[in-house]
């Protein structure tokens, strides 16, 4: 008895070194051994547990019942499985168990030895991972964004050796080696795509896209973005976003916002996540808006020209009258008994010059009247102001408006549509002229100045009319607001829409040095 006790306690000492919980019960189910790990797992001390029925102390919350397993053990001799038990503090523990039936040695009854490993935390982590994966898959599938998982390993294998071969500027190198870029597209293998990808790219099923490369989705014009994406990947930039055009399986162009992102994890696996958002509708709406704006601006220009028909006729009639007089003189020199060919040559040269002048006027008018797509170019603001004054010279003269120009030198160019900006300048000059008509006509003067602002060029129009008296009407730039009988009141809203479409703004106020209105047009300069 003393020996047995000594054996037991020596064995228990060894068992306490084991990390798994070890519980030994007799064939009647009474706990006879309970190591330190079991005490830690379940909360009962050895003294508390030994002598209790194990089925009562640790019933199985989930998994097969203790009793059923116990009953089957005799035939099988051992059992392994996972069950959930409630510990002393009430918390559920998930345990991986191994039971084995130790046949009775001579003189002693049989025993059942249980080793149990607490896997609660591991199972919770696994469940959380499953949930994360489920959430990711859900997002991947359900988002209105076309997602692509791309295996980039072979692309890396293709490009990384370039560095070793001394290629410093990957972008430049790839620009010179389009065949290498196409090869990269072919070996970038699609691992998975979502439902939105199928609908956007015109595929009936994933089979049509998954497993292949991406070459067929990249039109030639978009290749530079693919190169940029390759370079960004190798430079380990976190993401890349750009507007581009891609092709669907039928070869139609898709206007897309293209995003690439890499996480540290995906980078390790060589997997890239691409997102493609269809922005065709938005771009179409923007184009429509630009067209409406251009149409409106055109309508306003035609209306403006309508008000200038008398001036235009005058402008064209001047050179025509000169041509007519020169032709008369030329004939006269020829009809002399001794034709004076020097005089004839001189008048013919003048005729040619006046014809050009008339043609230039017609061209100016035609440009103003044309309905055309706005075309941005680098423009010199000072030249635009001078052209505007040339266009209006006759009207300014006949309204007896003196024009004083103060044009800043060295202004940076603006990126703008020539006709539309000129339209704004003409409008503002005409407004000034009309504001001064019938006011103090002896003082009628239009001051036009240009100056450089921060990343902008400003054009200032200051008249000597009545001004706003400190209260600029709130709706001055709204459509159809006018205090004048003339149709030119339509002009300001169009001026604003033109200037704002160019990324600038237009403001009205009183001129600082006494009565008169001031309009300031600000246009951004090229970055």
């Amino acid at each position: 008895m003393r020996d047995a006790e000594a054996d037991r306690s020596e064995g228990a000492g060894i068992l306490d070194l084991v990390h798994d919980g070890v519980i030994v019960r007799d064939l009647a189910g009474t706990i006879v051994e309970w190591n330190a790990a079991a005490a830690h797992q379940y909360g009962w001390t050895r003294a508390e547990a030994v002598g209790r029925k194990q089925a009562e102390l640790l019933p199985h919350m989930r998994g097969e019942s203790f009793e059923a397993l116990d009953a089957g053990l005799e035939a099988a001799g051992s059992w392994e499985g996972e069950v959930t038990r409630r510990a002393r503090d009430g918390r559920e523990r998930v345990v991986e168990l191994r039971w084995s039936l130790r046949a009775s040695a001579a003189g002693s009854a049989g025993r059942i030895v249980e080793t149990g490993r607490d896997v609660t935390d591991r199972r919770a982590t696994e469940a959380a991972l499953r949930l994360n994966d489920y959430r990711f898959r859900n997002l991947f599938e359900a988002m209105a964004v076309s997602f692509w998982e791309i295996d980039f390993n072979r692309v890396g294998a293709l490009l990384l050796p370039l560095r070793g071969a001394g290629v410093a500027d990957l972008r430049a190198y790839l620009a010179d080696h389009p065949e290498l870029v196409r090869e990269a597209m072919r070996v970038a293998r699609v691992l998975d795509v979502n439902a939105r990808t199928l609908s956007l790219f015109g595929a009936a099923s994933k089979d049509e896209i998954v497993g292949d490369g991406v070459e067929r989705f990249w039109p030639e014009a978009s290749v530079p973005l693919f190169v940029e994406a390759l370079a960004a990947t190798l430079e380990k930039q976190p993401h890349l976003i750009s507007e581009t055009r891609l092709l669907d399986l039928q070869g139609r162009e898709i206007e897309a916002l293209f995003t690439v992102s890499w996480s540290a994890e995906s980078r390790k696996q060589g997997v890239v996540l691409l997102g493609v958002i269809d922005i065709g509708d938005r771009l179409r709406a923007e184009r429509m808006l630009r067209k409406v704006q251009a149409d409106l601006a055109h309508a306003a220009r035609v209306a403006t020209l309508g008000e200038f028909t008398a001036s235009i006729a005058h402008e064209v009639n001047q050179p025509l009258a000169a041509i007519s007089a020169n032709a008369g003189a030329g004939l006269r020199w020829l009809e002399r008994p001794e034709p004076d060919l020097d005089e004839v040559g001189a008048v013919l040269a003048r005729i040619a010059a006046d014809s050009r002048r008339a043609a230039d006027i017609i061209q100016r008018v035609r440009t103003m009247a044309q309905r055309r797509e706005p075309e941005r170019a680098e423009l010199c603001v000072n030249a635009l102001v001078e052209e505007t004054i040339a266009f209006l010279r006759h009207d300014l003269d006949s309204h007896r408006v003196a024009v004083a120009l103060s044009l800043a030198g060295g202004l940076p160019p603006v990126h703008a549509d020539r006709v539309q900006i000129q339209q704004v300048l003409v409008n503002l000059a005409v407004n000034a002229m009309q504001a001064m008509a019938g006011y103090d006509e002896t003082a009628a003067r239009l001051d036009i100045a240009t100056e450089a602002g921060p990343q902008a060029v400003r054009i200032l129009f200051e008249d000597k009319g009545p001004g706003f008296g400190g209260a600029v009407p709130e709706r001055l730039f709204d459509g159809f607001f006018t205090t004048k009988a003339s149709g030119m009141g339509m002009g300001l809203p169009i001026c604003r829409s033109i200037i704002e479409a160019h990324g600038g703004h237009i403001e009205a106020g009183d001129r600082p040095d006494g009565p008169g209105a001031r309009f300031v047009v600000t246009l951004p300069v090229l970055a």
Partner: protein
Amino acid sequence: MAADTLISVVEDDESLRAALVGLLRSFGYEARGFASADDYLSVRDGRCGCVIADVHLPGTSGIALIGRLRDLGYSVPVIVITALLGPAVEREAHDRGAFCVLAKPFESEALIDCVERALAA
């Protein structure tokens, strides 16, 4: 030919002014040009047999010029030319005593005809 008769052309458009002076010269007239009515009025050397004046001029208009000349006691005939001929302009020019009124562009013969009649008047 009235080669000894001087004709004054008052026209602010430089090329038209040169063309008119040249036309008159080809017909044997001596002509001189002025860019404004005020420039012309400042000369007043009494040698002028006929004036050709544009309506739209900086400063004094061609029509107002007729009144200024009459006020100064000159009866020199004035031929008014304009690119903006309407009934109102024509009536006003005649009322102010214009010798004749021509709409730009005009035939050379029409102008010469006016000049000959003006010098004969």
